[in-house]
């Protein structure tokens, strides 16, 4: 269609979406497909499956072996660790995903300058990449939970609490992706070791969120920080939905309604702030010329 002066072509609709929303959705889907090609298509399916199975199971085995030092394990303790370890697979992938996607595009594939030159925003692109990484990690999480079942972990009688699961799963995922894109906006401005910051955050969160041990083991002041993390509430919510038991200590005393409310409010706050911080970070990176550089890191 020829473009005449004064009549810019409109954005093609995307399903029921129109205008900027359609453009963002199209970018998100395209980036998700690209992420699958990069993350899930790097090897034959059998090797990919082996990779997705071996590492999380090794993690789980490592923690169970350590726990076993303290004497024979009961299934409740195994269940606590299994769910925490499974969920953290997703947390880690979603936290590190946006930064690694941006840095991969800048340093490795050297395409970020071309993506930036398109009318699409980098925000849906980063979210799409992050969601696919989280989905692939979700497969590992299922494997870990399956291993837990084989080890005799008592899952909730009558199956998972679907209502709680449907409420908790997307809220937690959104909160983690939100934090991930903030990290992406920050790390794209860094010169050295930009790859390492999200991993450092992820490792710190792992230590704090009660994934493998109760918060009460942490030193006093650190417990309060740990109890204020949405990721802590997410893991606890999923434990309740899948195991029908609460964690020992302070988290266990929190009613499920309050847990859900806290998670919802936390996620809303993160999403009020995260896109703005991401855009600020990308704008600054563009002004300083950071989108176009290669640090060879």
């Amino acid at each position, binding site marked *: 269609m020829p473009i005449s002066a004064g009549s810019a072509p409109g954005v093609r609709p995307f399903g029921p979406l129109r205008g900027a929303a359609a453009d963002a959705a199209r970018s998100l889907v395209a980036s998700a497909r690209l992420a699958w090609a990069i993350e899930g298509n790097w090897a034959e399916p059998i090797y990919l499956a082996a990779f997705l199975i071996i*590492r999380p199971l090794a993690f789980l085995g490592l923690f169970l072996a350590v726990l076993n030092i303290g*004497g024979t394990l009961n299934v409740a303790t195994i269940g606590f660790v299994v769910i925490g370890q499974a969920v953290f697979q997703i947390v880690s992938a979603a936290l590190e995903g946006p930064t690694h996607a941006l840095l991969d595009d800048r340093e490795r594939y050297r395409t970020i300058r071309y993506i930036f030159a398109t009318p699409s925003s980098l925000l849906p692109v980063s979210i799409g990449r992050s969601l696919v990484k989280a989905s692939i990690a979700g497969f590992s999480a299922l494997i870990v939970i399956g291993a837990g079942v084989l080890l005799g972990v008592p899952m909730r009688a009558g199956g998972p609490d679907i209502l709680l699961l449907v409420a908790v799963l997307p809220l937690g995922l959104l909160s983690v992706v939100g934090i991930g894109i903030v990290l992406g906006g920050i790390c794209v401005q860094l010169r*050295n*070791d930009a790859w390492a910051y999200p991993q*450092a955050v992820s*490792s*710190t969160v792992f*230590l704090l969120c009660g994934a*493998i041990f109760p918060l009460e083991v*942490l030193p006093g002041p650190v417990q309060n920080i740990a109890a204020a993390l949405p990721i802590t509430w997410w893991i606890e919510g999923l434990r309740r939905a899948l195991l029908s038991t609460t964690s020992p200590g302070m988290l266990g005393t929190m009613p499920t309604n309050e847990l859900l409310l806290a998670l919802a409010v936390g996620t809303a706050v993160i999403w009020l702030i995260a896109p703005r911080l991401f855009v600020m970070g990308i704008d600054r990176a563009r002004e300083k010329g950071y989108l176009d550089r290669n640090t060879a890191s």
Partner: protein
Amino acid sequence: MGNSVVGAEATALISRIHDETTWSLGRRIRHAFVSVVARAYPRVIGAAREPSWLFFDLVFPILGMCSIVFLLRSRGVDEAWIASTILATALLSFWISVVWMMGAQFHWERDSGNLLLYITAPVGLGAIALGMAIGGALGVVIRAVIITVAGVLLFGAKYQVADPFLLALVMLAGVAAMYSLGVCLSSIFLISGREADHLGSLLNEPMHLLGGVYAPVRSMGTVGVVALGILPLAPAIDALRQVAVPQLAATGILPVGVELLILLAMTAVFGVIGRALLAHIERVGRAGGKLLARAD
């Protein structure tokens, strides 16, 4: 053919080329030594010039160590296991260096274009790999010491080393075996293409489990015994635990002397295999032109 060389001039030229390209054994050794030092230099000195590298090299192991210590404390285990965890974390800093700074190094060097420079320079890949190993090990020593001191200060761990010489010997043999394996890994990572990063990931937690790093290798049963024969981490940590934390000596699967011999044998065997693999990738890389050059 205005540039042709004939007669006495040709003979002199042939003689000169022969002199310049046929090195005596002494000259070859000197050249290899200089190459090793040159490659080790940035690993030791260069790394110290970038504080952020030191920071991240310490943060990740210390965070991992804290997780394991809190996990142990949640079960109320003997404090000797916390001392063992700190020791294991210090040893793991060498293993991480072996996986990423040895194994993945040539893969990264190819992506950054340096590998072609190595190949075109009059230096063997063996000398470069040895330089990477020596420099890497020296660079990690300070990190391992800081991790141990941090662990002792944070968690009040106590060690009773009756024979410091034996402890140093075990540590040295363990590090040598690991870096010797690293030379093999550098070729394997290079051949594995874009699976290299994933391969590196697989060499972390699964190997920590198989190597009995945090829990005794004895608890792994037959798999643990096999690991003891092929994975340097396993005999190294098992021997270190027996020497530095005597309360846990009963968890050792073999006597320290035997584990020391296993580590020395691993150093020799992995060294020979690594040398052969390097020669293979150099040959294949030169012939095919793809293995050593960046894809784009």
